[in-house]
């Protein structure tokens, strides 16, 4: 029984997902506090180099799981392989980054062995020797502290940005890479992944914009986007939007900011009538200065805003346009 904290590192086409390092940072901190060994797991095919890269971190070992059926991600193959290694190594806690891929397989993995999966956690504390995790409810408007009941292994995924990748501790010497051979039967893999592609036409590059004015569902109707455009014109800014605005076809997909759209880092980002769901925040919280206008003073967007105006955007934005034009006229 290894009792380890196991961080599952996500790679696609031989590249590590950045969020994996955040999960590893979390695993190291928890391992320290509980005095449990920390291990990392890399799975795929032909991914030895990634295991070696991860082995520079302070770890008890890196577990390398290679199989031709793991070359392309499928939930069936991933779960079969992971189930085997978990049964063999019996970790205490399996930590994963809360990526789209993890959302796709982790609930299946955990429930398949009658264990529970605490998804999208933003923090933890140790209370009387056991772990209590924090996760968000109501799209970030509330938090809840939750612990596991029953037996390990426990499964936890961590939200993007909750732990810092640059805090991963490196080891004195490379950790051992332990290969594990799985026995996945190809007949058990039911889904067949086909090509990956990007759809949005790139006519504008928001990643290069210095100022972005972004509208959310608070804008209510498509016609009202003219007001946002007017503000953008006054500022010499590009217009962006939250997902529902692009889903409605009010703005083209290429102007969607967030986890499934663009990640931007302008000098100034104005969020108008955007609540601040995590999937939006990950796309814009790198902006140097963030201004939010929202009628709800508890909207999570204010968690990242430098300046906030609590009010009706239909009153604030016209006033803002006027003041900007005045200031620029000087």
């Amino acid at each position, binding site marked *: 029984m290894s009792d380890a904290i196991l961080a599952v590192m996500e790679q696609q086409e031989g590249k590590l997902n950045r969020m994996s390092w955040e999960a590893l940072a979390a695993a190291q901190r928890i391992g320290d506090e509980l005095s449990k060994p920390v291990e990392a797991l890399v799975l795929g095919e032909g991914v030895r180099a990634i295991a070696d890269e991860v082995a520079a971190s302070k770890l008890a070992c890196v577990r390398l799981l290679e199989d031709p059926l793991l070359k392309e991600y499928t939930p069936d193959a991933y779960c079969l392989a992971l189930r085997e290694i978990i049964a063999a190594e019996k970790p205490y806690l399996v930590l994963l980054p809360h990526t789209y891929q993890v959302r796709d397989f982790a609930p299946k993995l955990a429930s398949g062995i009658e264990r529970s999966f605490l998804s999208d956690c933003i923090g933890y504390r140790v209370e009387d020797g056991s772990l209590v995790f924090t996760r968000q409810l109501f799209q970030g408007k509330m938090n809840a502290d939750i612990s596991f009941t029953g037996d390990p292994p426990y499964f936890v995924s961590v939200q993007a940005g909750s732990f810092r990748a640059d805090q991963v501790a490196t080891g004195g010497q490379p950790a051992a890479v332990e290969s594990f051979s799985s026995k996945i039967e190809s007949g058990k893999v039911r889904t067949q992944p086909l090509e990956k592609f990007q759809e949005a036409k790139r006519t504008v590059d928001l990643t290069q914009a210095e100022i972005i004015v972004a509208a959310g569902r608070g804008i209510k109707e498509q016609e009202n986007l003219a007001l946002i455009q007017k503000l953008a014109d006054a500022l010499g800014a590009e217009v962006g939007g939250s997902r529902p605005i692009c889903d409605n076809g009010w703005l083209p997909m290429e102007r969607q900011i967030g986890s499934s759209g663009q990640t931007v880092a302008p000098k100034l980002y104005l969020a108008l009538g955007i609540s601040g769901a995590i999937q939006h925040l990950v796309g814009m919280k790198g902006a140097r200065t963030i201004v939010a206008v929202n009628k709800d003073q508890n909207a999570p967007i204010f968690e990242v805003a430098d*300046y*906030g105006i609590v009010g009706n955007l239909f009153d604030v934005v016209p006033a803002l346009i006027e003041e900007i034009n005045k*200031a620029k006229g000087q």
Partner: protein
Amino acid sequence: MKIMVCIKQVPAKDSTLRLTEDSTWIREQDLSYEINEPDAYALEEALRLKEKHGGEVVVCSVGPDRVQQVIREALAKGADRAIHLVADGGSRLDSYPAARLMAEAVRREGFDLICTGLQSDDLGFAQTGVVLAELLGLPHATIIMEVQAEDGRLKVKRELEGGWFQWVQMPLPALLTIQSGINKLRYATLKGIKQAKSKEIRRVIATELGLKAEELAGRQKLHRVYVPVKTKQTEFIDGSPKEAAAKLVEKLQRDARVL
């Protein structure tokens, strides 16, 4: 195609949330409710598949009696019948209890396709659909933005991060978790609302499914619910819209130097 859609009733988006005195949940009596957003898209997708391939659309919701509101709405939009699995707040922790109830209730129905939303707006587990697939032994795919059904197979478009997509093929029966924006939602018609009144809503309690309370227990313990403590110092600018706008512009010029 015989299709099931899992719909969850969640607090309406603009709700003001207040905690209960013991800080273990929010005060439900103050709330109004609506259908979980991606579930509305899942229903729409199912109705479109039925229009194209024929068959039946059955909606299923787990919760107290108030969830009949979203069930009626789904029936009015064109679902053929509904299953209401009666459960109280116990299912709010952990995705397992709701998934287990649904699995037992529909195991013998023989659905070709089950559609859920990708995530609930209140609990946000992003798990219930995948757990249900596992309990029923079905293949699944998540965060789906297009569904093509042909010759007993599915070809679906999965959303990946950062504007990427991937096609995935799978056999039926299968389970898909649907992403918001996959289609354009329809409104219920007056005729639909009238017809809904005569459609079947099968009300089922756990013991009728042979499930004991222990079998529906989650594997998590909730300690406390609370309003997050702000960690960032946001400078709130007040005054009339005009005053606030003027102050903001000044700050952006002087302090942030971004104008």
